[in-house]
């Protein structure tokens, strides 16, 4: 194991439990603001994972867009709606809880089985090629050449999202 791999491992050992704990805390806490703040910590952990995976651009975007802009929006909405209003969710479906636990265990078995079968052992086909000349440069290059079309269609997606928010939001009481 080289020293850089060792460093990666140490960072992962610190980040991974933190990510799991904050994710659990986010779901389990009853206070919406705590929930949002725990989500921010979780997003930072994810950004750390992206750096470990040599996806520096995604890591930066994760911090700027998710941990920054989107979480601020969340908190704004929470503050505007008033905190402390606990929403009591009544269970509508009978047997939903045991079924959920059973299916979650099934998923766990499937994932562990897949790991044991070596699904993720293989070297990804394209990491070195994709990151040629630096991660950020490579993304910039490919976004405006090969994926121009996808990039432009994303604009239409944003128009639809904006119009949709308007239509659903402007409704009179």
């Amino acid at each position, binding site marked *: 194991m080289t020293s850089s791999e060792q460093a990666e491992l140490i960072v992962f050992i610190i980040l991974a439990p933190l990510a799991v704990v904050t994710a659990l805390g986010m779901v389990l806490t009853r206070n919406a603001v705590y929930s949002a703040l725990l989500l921010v910590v979780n997003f930072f952990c994810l950004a750390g994972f992206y750096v470990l995976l040599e996806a520096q651009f995604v890591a930066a975007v994760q911090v700027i867009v998710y941990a920054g802009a989107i979480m601020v929006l969340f908190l704004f909405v929470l503050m505007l709606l008033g905190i402390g209003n606990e929403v009591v969710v009544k269970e509508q479906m009978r047997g939903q809880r045991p079924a959920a636990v059973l299916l979650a265990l099934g998923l766990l078995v499937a994932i562990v089985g*897949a790991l044991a*079968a*070596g*699904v*993720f052992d*293989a070297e*990804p*086909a*394209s990491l070195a*090629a994709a990151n040629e*000349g*630096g991660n950020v*440069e490579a993304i910039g*290059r490919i976004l*405006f*050449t*090969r*994926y*121009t*079309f*996808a990039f432009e*269609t*994303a604009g*239409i*997606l944003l*128009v*639809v*999202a904006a*119009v*949709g928010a*308007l*239509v*659903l939001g402007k*409704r009179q009481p």
Partner: protein
Amino acid sequence: MHPLAQATTQPLPLPEVDWRAIAPELALAVAGVVLLLVVAFWPRAGRGVLAGLTLAGLAAAAALTVWNWDLERVAFEGAVSLDGITRYARAVLLAVGALATLMVAQGDSREGEPDDSPPEVFPLLLFALLGMVLLAAASDLLVVFIALEILSLSLYVMAGETRRLAAQEAAMKYFLLGAFSSAFLLYGIALCYGATGSTNLLEIADATGDPTADGTLLLAGVGLLAVGFLFKVSAVPFHMWTPDVYQGTPTPVAAFMAAATKVAGFAVFLRVFAGALGGLVVSWRPVIAGAAVLTMLVGAALAVVQTDLKRMLAYSSISHAGYLLVGVAAAATVPAGVSASMFYLLTYAFMVMGAFMVVQYVSRLGPPDDDAIGERSSLEDYRGLARRHPWAAGLLAVFMLALTGIPPLSGFWAKYYVFLAGIEAGLTWLVVVAVISSVISAFFYLRVLVVAYLQEPVGDPGAETAPGRTPALGVALGLAGLLTVAIGLAPEALIAAARSAERILG
């Protein structure tokens, strides 16, 4: 040299912009934006004006589709490919869009009541169609995802366009489950990219033919892709949302969802599974065939117990997705599977839209069954329909018989070609299940006709309200009925056109 300096000195090769290849999509996008501006700056514009503009946009897109009919090429460095599937799906989707525009123009309120669907529904309809057409043409998984999101987002909003509780609930359910399935699809795309090094379908096809490629990672990706697509075409076990959403959504939007989403969803299903992943057919065929069996049987069995026509049509659309999955399962080894599925989509789109049009008409004849739903679609409301509204009942009979698959109508040929392709692919057992499911489905389709023709109307006939003037709905009903009968009488030309769709460019 600093890597950044090096990167900036390399000239950026400008992408080739093939305007002609995406001309119909451009027309739809321009029409959508124009309609948005009209809605924004001319709030008093009537529904007739907006519908007229929408139809003009669709006509322009249709003209450009015809202009591009013989074009076969891959454009934008593999982002979109023009081939048989693309042009066939474009033609069907634009026709479906025109019928849906007429239904939306009619609106779902009764005579004298204010219409409660907002004018933004017209541009959203165009954007949804744009997403669908793009989905059928996409040959890069990234474009597939974006197109799918464009159409889904538009449909979520269209489903919740009215203030009725049921419509709001339908939109919420569709949105939550749709977002969940999109995540599966995206994860599948990521794993496929990890395994093959590309999101381009042509390159994935090359990589799957390569025995040194990592099999397990790719298979995990293919499985997740299948989950995403099966959800969108509402196949069992990812069908739970369909009945609630179809019932709660305003009828014109439900019709559009039922017909157009299936066309686009199966077009991309065929392109990705039968085309790009054709080399892995041994691995995915059992999964798709299993889903087909479940979808056909569960859809038909649950449709039998429904007492609401919209809900019944939702379960019927599930079982039709099952027949189409037979076509997909066959398509990887038998080219006729592709053409049979495309032809099935064409006929199914008009039959199911027609059935929903009759629902929309009958809904105008009286007070709603339930204020939350705001529509009148219970089977009880169809009692004695033939006595008082012979034309509506006659068209209902045409659509129900066509959905059953009774010979001279279009639905029979659709099933015939799909079953033939299934047998040719060696899936005889699957075709046997499909026939059993068709027999079960005959029960609930014909029951609607029994109610409409043989039972006495309940209550005071004077309590029924007049349907009011329904010019747009009348034209749409006439067209759907005519197409269903005409395709049934002369399917040769259209199946021949579908045969030209058999070669998938990737």
